[in-house]
């Protein structure tokens, strides 16, 4: 009891500390001072009156949302004496693996830089700055200054997969003997993952007895049964502006018309003038300086999103978001709870001198092949560049970063892979064994889906329903469950294939899948 109390006190102290530096704190202070003018605020009961005022005027709600937001992102309570590395990643071997992976990426980036004799960063000449400013809204039409064919993406998901396959816990000896406990999959680290009974409990709102958008809003079902009421509740949640309620609500899916606002509420994004100003500042940084990663971004957008049947329309928005993202140093904050660390670079000639070290790129995130697909679906919902930017940034520092860093977190990509393989092995053993025999390890096919959070593989409306649940449950585990559910769905065809290529072909096109029925069948309707 005492331990819990002191844990709680620690968390409260840390959140208060964090919020004190935020804009909200300044606003609350200002509001409190202004409220002194009001007649109902009396000197004798100053504290209570101001609290009451905050409650009525909606400021308490905003504070609640901010606290809730911190709690969602905040790592689990740790011992006060734990060093900061433990906050990033408690397991040493994971930290080491992440460190060596990062060194590899940086080496690759540096060698490309040397090969092409292009500086990591340079200041743009004034003429070029002017031109870029004019073309800001249509960067997609421009041929980039450098020949893009010279650039290779720094890495692709399959390179990352190879690293994960080779992860081993040096303290864990599996023994040579094979038993029914032997894990048949590619991931060979002993992390705890949920099994179906635990998933059923975790995802209880997706159960067969609860209404779902994505299932119960189909044309055959009369809207009076579920949809109308659900929309009404959604509107109420929005009018209350309660983050926690929105997060609970969205577990059953978000109506199309309310989704943009609901996501903004859950992520606690409100477009304040300061936010717009911040975005404009980033835009200025883009205009003034050219970074090597910009070319990587151009290449990625041209290769992936521009070729997509639906996202090609948003090409310009993608540049506007991603180029600014690379320069946003506030993103560095997420490295406190991510196992990754931002790559360091040194001012020319001062290698090794810490005073001349800078993070490169400024936000510490090196984009890989497919990175722009994290942004593309958001263009469907947000049309104002600074809001689109904020939403993407928040989605990245809460969720997406876990998909390409090595950690033991339950939503980290390693756990997701292990969860996927364990589910498949436990509940579809025959299929797993068959695929393994023909050299088609299931993870080799599903890895790319999970790394991209299925963006570009599912139809957009289905993807948005899936991402609703990511926000609702504040976890990425649903990606692994969906991947397993897809295999279960196509099991009959997969049992007949005899090669990896054929298996890939069966699973090449996911655009017709309906995610919610698949998840429901897999979790709740299969005999276990």
């Amino acid at each position: 009891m005492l331990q819990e109390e002191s844990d709680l006190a620690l968390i409260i102290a840390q959140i208060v500390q964090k919020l004190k530096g935020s804009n909200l704190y300044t606003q609350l202070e200002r509001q409190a001072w202004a409220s002194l003018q009001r007649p109902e605020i009396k000197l004798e009961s100053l504290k209570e009156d101001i609290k009451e005022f905050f409650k009525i005027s909606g400021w308490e709600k905003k504070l609640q949302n901010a606290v809730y937001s911190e709690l969602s992102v905040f790592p689990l309570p740790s011992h006060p004496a734990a060093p900061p590395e433990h906050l990033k990643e408690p397991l040493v071997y994971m930290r080491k693996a992440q460190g060596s992976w990062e060194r590899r990426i940086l080496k690759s980036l540096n060698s490309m830089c040397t090969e092409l004799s292009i500086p990591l960063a340079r200041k743009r000449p004034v003429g070029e700055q002017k031109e870029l400013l004019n073309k800001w809204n249509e960067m997609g039409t421009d041929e980039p200054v450098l020949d893009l064919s010279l650039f290779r993406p720094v890495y692709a998901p399959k390179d990352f997969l190879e690293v994960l396959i080779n992860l081993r816990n040096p303290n864990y000896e599996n023994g040579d003997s094979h038993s029914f406990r032997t894990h048949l999959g590619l991931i060979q680290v002993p992390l705890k993952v949920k099994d179906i009974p635990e998933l059923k409990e975790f995802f209880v709102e997706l159960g067969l007895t609860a209404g779902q958008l994505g299932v119960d809003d189909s044309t055959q079902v009369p809207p009076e049964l579920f949809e109308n009421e659900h929309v009404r509740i959604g509107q109420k949640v929005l009018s209350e502006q309660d983050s926690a309620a929105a997060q609970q609500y969205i577990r059953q899916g978000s109506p199309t018309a309310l989704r943009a606002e609901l996501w903004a509420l859950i992520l606690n994004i409100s477009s304040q003038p300061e936010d717009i100003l911040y975005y404009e500042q980033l835009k200025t940084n883009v205009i003034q300086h050219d970074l090597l990663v910009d070319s990587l971004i151009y290449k990625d957008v041209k290769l992936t999103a521009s070729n997509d049947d639906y996202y090609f329309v948003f090409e310009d928005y993608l540049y506007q978001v991603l180029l600014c993202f690379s320069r946003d140093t506030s993103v560095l904050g997420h490295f406190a709870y991510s196992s990754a660390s931002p790559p360091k670079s040194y001012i020319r000639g001062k290698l090794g001198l810490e005073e001349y070290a800078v993070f490169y790129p400024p936000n510490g995130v090196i984009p890989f092949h497919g990175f722009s697909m994290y942004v593309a679906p958001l263009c469907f919902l947000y049309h104002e560049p600074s809001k689109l930017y904020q939403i993407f940034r928040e989605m990245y520092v809460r969720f997406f970063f876990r998909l390409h860093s090595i950690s033991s977190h339950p939503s980290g990509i390693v756990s997701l892979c292990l969860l996927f393989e364990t589910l498949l092995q436990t509940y579809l053993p025959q299929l797993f064994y068959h695929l393994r025999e023909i050299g088609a390890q299931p993870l080799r096919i599903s890895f790319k889906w999970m790394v991209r959070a299925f963006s570009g593989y599912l139809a957009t409306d289905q993807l948005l329903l899936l991402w609703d649940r990511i926000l609702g449950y504040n976890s990425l585990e649903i990606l692994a469950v969906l991947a397993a559910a897809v295999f279960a769905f196509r099991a009959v065809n997969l049992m007949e294939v005899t090669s990896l290529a054929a298996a890939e072909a069966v699973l090449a096109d996911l655009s017709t899948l309906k995610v919610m029925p698949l998840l429901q069948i897999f979790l709740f309707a299969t005999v276990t």
Partner: protein
Amino acid sequence: MNTLMDVLHHRPGWVEVKDEGEWDFYWCDVSWLRENFDHTYMDEHVRISHFRNHYELTRKNYMVKNLKRFRKQLEREAGKLEAAKCDFFPKTFEMPCEYHLFVEEFRKNPGITWIMKPVARSQGKGIFLFRRLKDIMDWKKDTRSSDDQKDDIPVESYVAQRYIENPYLIGGRKFDLRVYVLVMSYMPLRAWLYRDGFARFSNTRFTLNSIDDQYVHLTNVAVQKTSPDYHPKKGCKWMLQRFRQYLASKHGPEAVETLFSDMDNIFIRSLQSVQKVIISDKHCFELYGYDILIDQDLKPWLLEVNASPSLTASSQEDYELKTSLLEDTLHVVDMEARLTGREKRVGGFDLMWNDGPVSREDGAHDLSGMGNFVTNTHLGCVNDRKKQLRQLFRSLQGQKKTPN
């Protein structure tokens, strides 16, 4: 990818007729029609894919005339409000015969942009924008002396139309919608609306600064294909379902319902305006491709109606759309005489007008709030045609078996 040939060849029981053999069905082109229709005898059951004088609807100058006349008639009969429902066509003047009327309108609205379109060409050919009268001097009537007129080459018929300067943009790009309407007869008027269609995007960002850049303003795929930025992989099309979802997430379902209901209005009124003019031969049916432009206030405008919408597929998705469209067209034409004639839906087609408005079965409440009839159209909605066709034909078979 020839969709038409594939669909016809795959249809059970259909055989292609070579040379001069007798045929029961002809998907003809308009030039054949022009030369042969009048002296071709057709048995009762024979079907042909065009109406004799379809150009009343599909040639821009005739369509404008018919619409103007219809509008006047509506105003006389039902008042200004009703007539205003025909204001979906941007102000248009035939050139050169209406040149002076055009100049009057031109002077009333200084500085706006106009678009010149050849009356009879397609695929965006010959179209240009202008703001100054001197750009269209060739169409000025009665300025040449009688001596000159003998030597002059006759000027091609064009229409000058008010250019919609505030189109709805997605991703900064202009687009228009291609919608398919199947007319089985004009007297009485029976028309079907296909649920699928697509939005065609211009490859470049929209701006009024460069009216010379036809790639910006013209969204036909044929024109886009010649643009230097065109990458065939892109295809630059969105299925209507995607477009409808996008709008719904941005403006809410009610606004979208209103927009689509306004589009229904365009289809029906445009057909009504030529109803009495078109020779309604029972052998004829026609599949029209409507081009609609949406402006920033979510008002739909009719750009034109095509009697021979392109049936070539630009991608796999496009191929599937067009083959389904053609299959369902043949189902509705019903050479096999399977339908009862009382169907409200066949595959992806919904019966939109049957000598009067057609209601939705479930009597859904009216979302648009305008007191309008909730029509039986589902443009941009789910198209589960295969399932519907299975159910339809199964029940038809069942009906045939029970003697009555």
